């Protein structure tokens, strides 16, 4: 069995032989932007998730104009095949993938294994040189809200799940991709994290599948059979409306990618508000297992 959308992943070998292909733009997005500065895949553009892929003032993804300016200046056009990669097994690269899909970019792909996989193969080139691609005029579509879950929908589902004992229906399949200690409510956020919440626990009805369980030790994605066993084993089915969330909405983009593009879930959304929104709401139902 192969992935539902195998074309959304590229291998290092494929990328190596397409480094000078003019129809491709390679973009690196890291947890730690120093990684790109030290060295990257030749030709790759470096985006900073905090500065480039968020609204600078309000808590939101960039708006269409902001994204258009960013991509135009960096020489990315609507017609380009975008190949994304990054550190931590493509964690923030997957977030960029989600943002680009939200704004309708047709052809976006992830480098399987991310930057670590490339780095550890010494036959693959790396450079500190920054290439300036000629500017374009990028035109994003209206954001595709079917890829994004909002707190109102999550709350409806959570209240339904909270009533499950009295026969209330579970409306959404909620996947909490944080660590087990965040899920159980033992901790609010991993140690040292600035963005946090007032309360610990998880959204009622959610199942816990930490995001990195979808990857092998080298950062590549697990096989489709392993992934099916992993998520199926938690009772998640491809046909049902599904929402992934984490703390700030980035780790969950990784799982969103896995569910949608590797397993073919047809209705899966990323809840980018995630726990730092939900865990701060007055009166929101919370499940806690400590």
């Amino acid at each position, binding site marked *: 069995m192969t992935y539902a959308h195998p074309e959304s992943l590229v291998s290092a070998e494929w990328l190596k032989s397409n480094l000078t292909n003019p129809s491709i733009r390679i973009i690196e997005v890291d947890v*730690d932007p*120093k990684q790109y500065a*030290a*060295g990257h895949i030749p030709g790759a553009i470096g985006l900073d998730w905090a500065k480039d892929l968020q609204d600078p003032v309000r808590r939101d993804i960039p708006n269409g104009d902001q994204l258009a300016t960013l991509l135009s200046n960096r020489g990315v056009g609507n017609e380009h095949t975008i190949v994304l990669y990054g*550190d*931590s097994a493509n964690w923030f690269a997957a977030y960029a993938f989600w943002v680009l899909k939200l704004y309708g970019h047709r052809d976006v792909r992830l480098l399987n294994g991310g930057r670590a996989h490339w780095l*550890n193969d010494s036959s693959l080139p*790396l450079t500190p040189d920054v290439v300036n691609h000629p500017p374009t005029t990028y035109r994003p579509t209206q954001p595709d809200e079917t890829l994004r879950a909002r707190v109102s929908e999550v709350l409806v589902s959570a209240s339904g799940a909270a009533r499950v004992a009295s026969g209330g229906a579970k409306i959404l399949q909620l996947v909490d991709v944080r660590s087990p200690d965040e899920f159980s409510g033992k901790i609010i956020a991993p140690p040292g994290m600035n963005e946090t919440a007032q309360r610990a626990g998880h959204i009622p009805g959610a199942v816990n599948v930490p995001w990195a369980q979808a990857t092998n030790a080298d*950062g590549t994605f697990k096989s489709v059979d392993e992934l099916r066993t992993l998520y199926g084993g938690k009772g998640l089915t491809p046909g049902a409306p599904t929402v992934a969330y984490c703390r700030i909405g980035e*780790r969950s983009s990784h799982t969103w990618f896995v569910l949608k593009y590797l397993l073919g879930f047809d209705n899966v959304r990323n809840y980018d508000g995630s726990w730092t929104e939900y865990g701060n709401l007055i009166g929101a139902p919370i499940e806690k297992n400590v």
Partner: protein
Amino acid sequence: MPESTHSQPGTRTTTDLHARVYDGVLDMMPSEENPTPLVRLNALTPPGSTLYAKLEWMNPFGSVKDRAAWAMIRDLESRGELGDAKPGRGIVEPTSGNTGFSLAAIASVRGYPARAVMPSKVPTEKRALIRMAGADVDISSDAMCPLPGSEDGTIGLARTYARAQSNKYVMPNQYENQINARAHEETTGPEIWRQTQGKVSHVFVSLGTCGTVTGISRYLKSKNANVKIIAVQPSPGHDVPGLRNVSELDVSKLYDPSLIDEILQIDFNLAYTNALSLLRREGLRAGPSSGLIFEGARIISARDGVPMGVMIFCDDIFKYVSTMIKHLPELGGSDAEGGS
């Protein structure tokens, strides 16, 4: 002090170990002839056992890591990877601090640039020290998400410099470089054997890159297969700089469990409280990893008796002032006592 101490290149060497007069700081590097001191513990040893501390902070740059750093740099020089064969090239290394300081200091003496990539949990003193020694420092974000494989951006970042900018950097790579272990096989091990006149029964070590444990164990077990090598590891969630829990040892390619007789897991808080006891009761200014090692020695002494134990005290407490205050706020003086 004789005038000739400051000898010019080409003049007769005046290093005199007995008088402790050296031709240059690198001549202070330890060896069987110039070992770091072995000091017996008199107040804290459980009855019936004998424990000695090997004071690695007496090395020229203040830690056990001088041995590996010096050996790795000489190896790179001898292979033409550093030095005249590669003008302008320097060193990049992922380090929790001690290796970085040793490398930075040796690199400065040798005229090479250096860059250290450090995890953010490293105490500020250590970062500042490395900068003082003339190296550039990158602080790499620690795991934002506590899951295996997603952490330790330091090694990846250092490797990126070495791969993408190989004209400027070579990475000794203490986590994988066999020279790290060999340094201990050729110096620390023989020193212990000679200093104890072959009577050493137990060696107590901690685990970081595992160069220390692997090198010492290889040498001492070749001399006497019955020497017990006891390693300590801090409990999970620890913040003891330089050390790894066994669950974090996958990056340490020098880790060879067949060379270790027993691994004790010890509550990491004891690293800090024991460091205080060692200073207050023995006058030994040992750092936190030594505090943890001492706990291991105490446990085995009480359980089995230790006829001649040697504890590797990797570094001293001076560079852990902020870490010590974090764990023992009363050390911070009136501000901390006031509370809020």
